[in-house]
């Protein structure tokens, strides 16, 4: 159902939802940027509509809500394991179209690809998604090129303007919240609401069509590799990167007790392929760059039938060495068309 309502009313609905859901949305974290007196936008638990950063694309994606950066898999004593409790409440996640498309990619890896992941699944099945529209394109995104600019599989859509809030609520559970609020206050106007989405980006990306193992020897990888400082930021901001590493830790005050965790990992950082005994693969940064790019636009598609990259552009925004993944992809496509 589409609605037009006042900000106050919308906050009332938000309040209704908050009873049942923990609500996560992009928030402006003041002073938490990389450099002094800079801010970042990342996901946090919000209490009201005003807590949400509506204008700026989040620097870090929603994925940390579904896939914690550090997740305790279980606690152990000498011969017993205990799994920590899952989320106490259902979860609402505010996100943009590119990110909603990324959810499908996370699902592909964590719910399918071999085994279903217990920890992801128990959060995922309690999550609903509220689409934030994009009236204008962001600087670095290329969602139109990736076909991720538009989404209709949202549970609700919310748009906030100066004097009104517009909602399209598809999920009946969320609609209950709207109704609960409508009963206690004045009418909420029924309206036709369709999500804003961009039809053209500044960045346009063409995917190369004929990648193969032969692409491994391209000079472009070594060129970018020579510039890369293997910090892994591109992976950590990416809404579709899913890798993790296991960690076993013991508590200082009782070394017989501890926990096993999984923690986000980056294919760009040393140690990613290193096995016990020290043997590792992809030692050169160029090979790692190639591995990442090929995964996003070729390997994943070969396995699952559609490209992994959703074109959010965060990796380009965050790279301290100004390595542009989107330009790299375009260069690959150009090389292909010229040969």
């Amino acid at each position, binding site marked *: 159902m589409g609605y037009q309502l006042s900000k106050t009313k919308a906050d009332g609905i938000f309040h209704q939802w908050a009873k049942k859901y923990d609500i996560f949305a992009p928030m402006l974290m003041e002073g938490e940027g990389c450099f002094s007196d800079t801010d970042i936008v990342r996901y946090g638990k919000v209490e009201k509509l005003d807590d949400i950063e509506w204008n700026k694309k989040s620097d870090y994606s929603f994925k940390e809500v579904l896939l914690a950066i550090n997740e305790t*898999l*279980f606690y*152990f004593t*000498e*011969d017993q*394991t205990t*799994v920590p409790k899952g989320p106490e409440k259902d979860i609402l996640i505010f996100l943009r179209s590119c990110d909603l498309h990324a959810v499908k990619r996370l699902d592909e*890896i*964590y719910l399918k*690809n*071999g*085994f*279903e*992941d*217990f*920890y992801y*699944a*128990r959060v995922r099945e309690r999550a609903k998604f509220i689409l934030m529209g994009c009236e204008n394109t962001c600087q670095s995104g290329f969602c139109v090129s990736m076909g991720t600019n538009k989404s209709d599989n949202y549970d609700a859509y919310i748009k906030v303007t100066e004097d009104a809030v517009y909602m399209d609520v598809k999920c009946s559970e969320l609609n209950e919240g709207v109704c609960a609020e409508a009963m206690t206050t004045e009418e909420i106007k029924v309206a036709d609401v369709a999500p804003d989405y961009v039809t053209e980006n500044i960045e346009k990306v063409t995917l190369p069509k004929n990648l193969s*193992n032969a692409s*491994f020897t391209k000079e472009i990888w070594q060129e970018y590799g020579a510039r890369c400082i293997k910090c892994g930021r591109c992976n950590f901001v990416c809404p579709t990167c*899913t*890798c*993790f*590493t*296991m*960690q*076993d*830790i*013991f508590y200082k005050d009782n*070394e017989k007790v*501890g926990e*096993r965790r*999984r923690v986000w*990992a980056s*294919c760009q950082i040393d140690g*990613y*392929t*290193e*096995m*016990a*005994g*020290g*043997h*590792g*693969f*992809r030692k050169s940064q160029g*090979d790692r760059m190639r*591995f990442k790019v*090929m*995964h996003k636009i*070729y*390997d*994943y598609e*070969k*396995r699952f039938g559609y490209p992994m990259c959703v074109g959010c552009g965060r990796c380009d925004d965050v790279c301290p060495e100004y390595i542009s993944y989107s330009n790299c992809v375009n260069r690959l496509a150009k090389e292909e068309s010229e040969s």
Partner: protein
Amino acid sequence: MTNHYIPQLSTIKEVIKHTDLEYTFRMTFDGEAKPGQFFEVSIPKYGEAPISVSGIGEGTVDFTIRRVGKVTNEIFENYVGDKFFIRGPYGNGFEIDNYKGKELVVVAGGTGLSPVRGVVDYFAHHTGEAVSTTVIAGFKSPKDVLFKDDFKFWNETINVIQTVDSAPEGYEGPVGMVTKYIPDLKFENIENTAFICVGPPVMIKFTVMEILKLGVPEKNIWVSNERKMCCGLGKCGHCKIGSTYICLDGPVFNYVDGKELID
């Protein structure tokens, strides 16, 4: 919903010491497992390590572990009368049927012999099921030889070339890399051969080169790839090569597919 990350306690039934660095742990396990598959073996607070199945018995599974890292060090230090956590088996393992009726050659380097030991042992006990079975097993030195008891039996029923990279003076057995023995292999029908090649990545590379020189079709070669595997469940990403997850699609690959796996 099954939580695949939760390991089960497994009791050590027996420890077979091959060398100072390599022991086989016979662990309790109820379930199916194939040679070439692997388990995540762990001691809490030291972490998990992917260890391949080196033998399957009644209610037991064998892990031949080389002491190379934090987890395996701890396993060696603390195993006495104790238990480990295990979860698995993972991966595809070797299909015995692929090698039946073939002139089978197994080339293994060091602990690379463990995942394929079950295959060799099968044909050593069922000699009629393969046209012939040959094992070329390479170790660093005479003191690094694994599965000595197995070799005694294998020597009776199948062709065994057990070689060492180097040996002290006076050593009478074969010396040299496994690749040295491949050109001399003789076959009734090269098209009906089957090769299995397991060991460190460099060893696999050069061994396969030698095998191909014999005129063996690529489809007759199988390799087992070792990679970092944190989860064994197709999630953690560390073992991915191209579009392949070694933990799900491997670790055993027919060379036709295996040759496409470039890290």
